[in-house]
């Protein structure tokens, strides 16, 4: 039975609760039809989502524990694609997210943005009014 599956989460902007998103993605993808290399795709989406949220916690909200992150997950089982949208009302990137496309060796900063771009097929960031809106998309099969 092919269909759109939509899940909405709102979590505190805290490192402590980012595992909730990982868990949700893991359970969701375990029930989605036709996912190639399911464990790998799941891990990559969990890590990309973790990195986006960590960026929001550390940079948008600068550690403010009152911040919230709105997350919309949509799976299109016909197109075999998963889309995620992350919204926050923290500080934005005035010139967009830095494009870290390659790294020569591991470092203490910048690896998160590098990983996001490596692990999913599309990454988009926009400032919409008071909101930062991240969109990531990955083919599942």
């Amino acid at each position: 039975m092919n269909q759109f599956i939509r899940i909405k989460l709102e979590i505190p902007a805290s490192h402590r609760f980012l595992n909730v998103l990982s868990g949700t993605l893991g359970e969701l993808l375990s029930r989605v039809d036709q996912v190639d290399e399911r464990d790998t795709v799941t891990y990559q989406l969990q890590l990309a989502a973790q990195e986006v949220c960590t960026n929001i916690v550390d940079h948008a909200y600068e550690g403010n524990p009152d911040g919230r992150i709105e997350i919309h997950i949509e799976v299109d089982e016909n197109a075999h694609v998963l889309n995620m949208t992350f919204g926050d009302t923290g500080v934005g990137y005035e010139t967009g997210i830095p494009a870290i496309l390659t790294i020569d060796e591991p470092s203490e900063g910048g690896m998160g943005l590098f990983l996001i771009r490596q692990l999913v097929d599309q990454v988009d960031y926009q400032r919409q009014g008071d909101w930062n809106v991240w969109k990531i998309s990955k083919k599942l099969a």
Partner: protein
Amino acid sequence: MEIQISERVIRVQVVTLSGRFDAFSAPDVRQQTQTLLAAGEKYFVLNLRDLAFMDSAAMAVLVSLLKGARTAGGGVTLVKPKDENALRILLLTKFDRVFKMVEDVDTAMREVINV
């Protein structure tokens, strides 16, 4: 003829991490390893064998520890995670360029003192 026998003892700190090593748990690992560095320890084996998940915050802790250990004249050797996806991320971020990465703790113990 003179015979001199001396004993050399090299201390290696074996830090075993399992489960989820992420932005939430990374500060604790950083604090504990920095405490060891401050106490004069300089050889570290990071056993990542049973690690289920690792993010960039966790990887930054490993890089920081490596810098500290090298500054002290020591080093850090990693035991590779058996989870292929976690290992793939370490390779994607070029960890194999700066860390010795081996299959088990015994090998890591031998490697880390040969820096």
